[in-house]
């Protein structure tokens, strides 16, 4: 592109950079502020003197957190749930996406199944009947209540169907001529060439399970069974209990702001660790997702 250094060009460059930088900073600074609060003295936080750098730097809340039994219990429940939930999600996603990626000449019941799957994606009975079913199945207060109701992630299934459809049919045919069974073809031919799509789906499932607080709130009646996000949600001020504005104001400036900030920062660290992968693969995911039926 030719560079014309006219005044108008320069002004437009400055405006573009300024807007983009402002928007970017708006995403970054509030998060840095959170970290700074977690590393500051509680008096400085209460006096609202903490900006982007910690004031009265100390790690006392982090030390205190090490001894916080409920936090770590919830942390472990979340880890267990992520591992179990993601594994179950993947088994269902793969085992459903593979048959449904075949043409209806090879799998004559495909359209019926597709209709069921799409209907399940679009229509829900709502949380109340769902809660009744989960409690009738005696899943309430067990880890299964957090992983089974969402065991079939329909959106991910459709994403993987679209990806499998793009795998060259010749690979499949060659394996069939060699006498491989459908399961062997899936495991030995399809899965190895689908790693980027599988990574995307794994990451979606992982983030979903880690971030979900609502099923914990819905299905766990005891606080010691809360996964991490539910624990934090309950802790960072149960706003629904507050009825007047003054109380809200008081709570906002309470001393445990430092400690809560610490919990939030620590709960986010696992996501930050996988963030480079997330960033790499979710774009892939959106591109595959965009290839429609």
């Amino acid at each position, binding site marked *: 592109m030719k560079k014309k250094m006219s005044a*108008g060009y320069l002004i*437009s460059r400055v405006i573009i950079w300024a807007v*983009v930088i402002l*928007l*970017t900073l708006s*995403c970054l600074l*509030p998060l840095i502020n*959170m970290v700074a609060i977690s590393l500051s003295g509680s008096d400085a936080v209460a006096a*609202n003197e903490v900006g982007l750098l910690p004031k009265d730097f100390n790690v006392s809340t982090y030390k205190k957190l090490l001894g916080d039994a409920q936090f770590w219990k919830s942390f472990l429940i979340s880890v267990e749930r992520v591992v179990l939930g993601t594994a179950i999600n993947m088994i269902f996603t793969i*085992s*459903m996406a*593979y*048959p449904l990626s*075949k043409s209806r000449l090879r*799998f*004559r*019941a495909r*359209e019926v*199944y597709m209709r*069921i799957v799409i209907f399940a994606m679009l*229509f829900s*009975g*709502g*949380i*109340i*009947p*769902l809660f*009744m079913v989960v409690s009738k*199945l005696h899943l309430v207060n067990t880890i299964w209540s957090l992983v*089974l109701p969402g*065991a*079939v992630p329909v959106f991910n*299934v459709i994403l993987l169907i679209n990806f499998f459809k793009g795998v060259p049919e010749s690979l499949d045919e060659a394996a069939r001529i060699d006498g491989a069974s459908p*399961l062997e073809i899936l495991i030995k031919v399809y899965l190895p060439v689908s790693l980027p799509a599988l990574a995307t789906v794994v990451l979606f499932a992982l*983030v979903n399970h*880690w*971030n*979900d*607080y609502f099923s914990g709130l819905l299905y766990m009646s005891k606080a010691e069974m809360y996964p991490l996000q539910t624990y*934090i*949600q309950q802790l960072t001020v149960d*706003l*629904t209990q*507050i*009825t007047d*504005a003054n109380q809200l104001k008081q709570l*906002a*400036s309470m001393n445990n702001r430092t400690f*809560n*900030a610490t919990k*939030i920062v620590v709960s*986010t660290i696992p*996501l930050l660790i996988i*963030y480079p992968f*997330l960033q790499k693969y*979710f*774009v892939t995911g*959106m*591109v595959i997702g*965009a290839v429609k039926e």
Partner: protein
Amino acid sequence: MKAAQTKNVSAVKAKRQGLTREEKTFHLMLLPGMIILLLFVFIPLVGSLMAFQNYVPAKGLLGSKWVGLENYKFIFSLPDGRQVFVNTLVIAFAKLVMNIFVPVTFAILLNEITAKVFKRTFQTIVYLPHFLSWVVLATVVTNMFSLEGPFNAVVTMFGGEPIQFLASNSWFRKVIVGTDVWKEFGYNSVVYLAALTGIDPGLYEAANIDGANRFKQIWHITVPALLPTVVLMTALNLGNILNAGFDQIFNLYNPIVYETADIIDTYVYRIGMVERQYSIGAAVGLLKSVISFALILGANKCAKKATGSGIF
């Protein structure tokens, strides 16, 4: 299902009898997933018939008394029953518009930055909030909008009185829409950035030779090129117009702002799960599902007509 299957067969191919070996495996592979969907989607769907009952848990769905549309009459006789539908539509519509306008603008601006290192750094940062939960971000937002927070610092700098943004019925919706856009604009801009990379650079060169400046090029080349994507995204999001964002509002609202902030989903949760009026909660939830379903089907048809592609 068997009947539909055989019908399908005859429609697709002339009489092939029985299942092939491969098909048997396929049915087996789909079976566990179908059981899950049956348990957690289709049975609750039958359960939502309690919307037409005076449901008593001890009596169950079969034993409870059927009351027809009484629950709906009751809901719409309540002022807050009507209000939640209004709130939902207002908040969701504002989000729909802003969640297209801001990401499109951001994508166009970011596309103008040719320095790769900076572009990638900006992208890395703006995608981040999308992956954080509203539980975490609610604390961040509460900090930002607190009486001593940066927004009130600006207000007082211009000589105004500090505002309790999250406890004010005139501000709450604006904060909700603004922070939702803030969380998602980076992520939402991905589709538009992808569309921008598809534009033929030759178009810009030609415009350059014709003497069009950068703004004119954006207006006459970039914006029209994005239009199909914008139409598609609008149509798809229209189906979501009754989802005003439960997680966000649930983590930020309080009784002071119920008047403007209470949406269908938060109302269903409170009335059904907290107050345990199961039938009323289920009735509101079912009505929402039915309207949403119709909207999604309609929106998908429109999207297909307008751009040739839909979600299904």
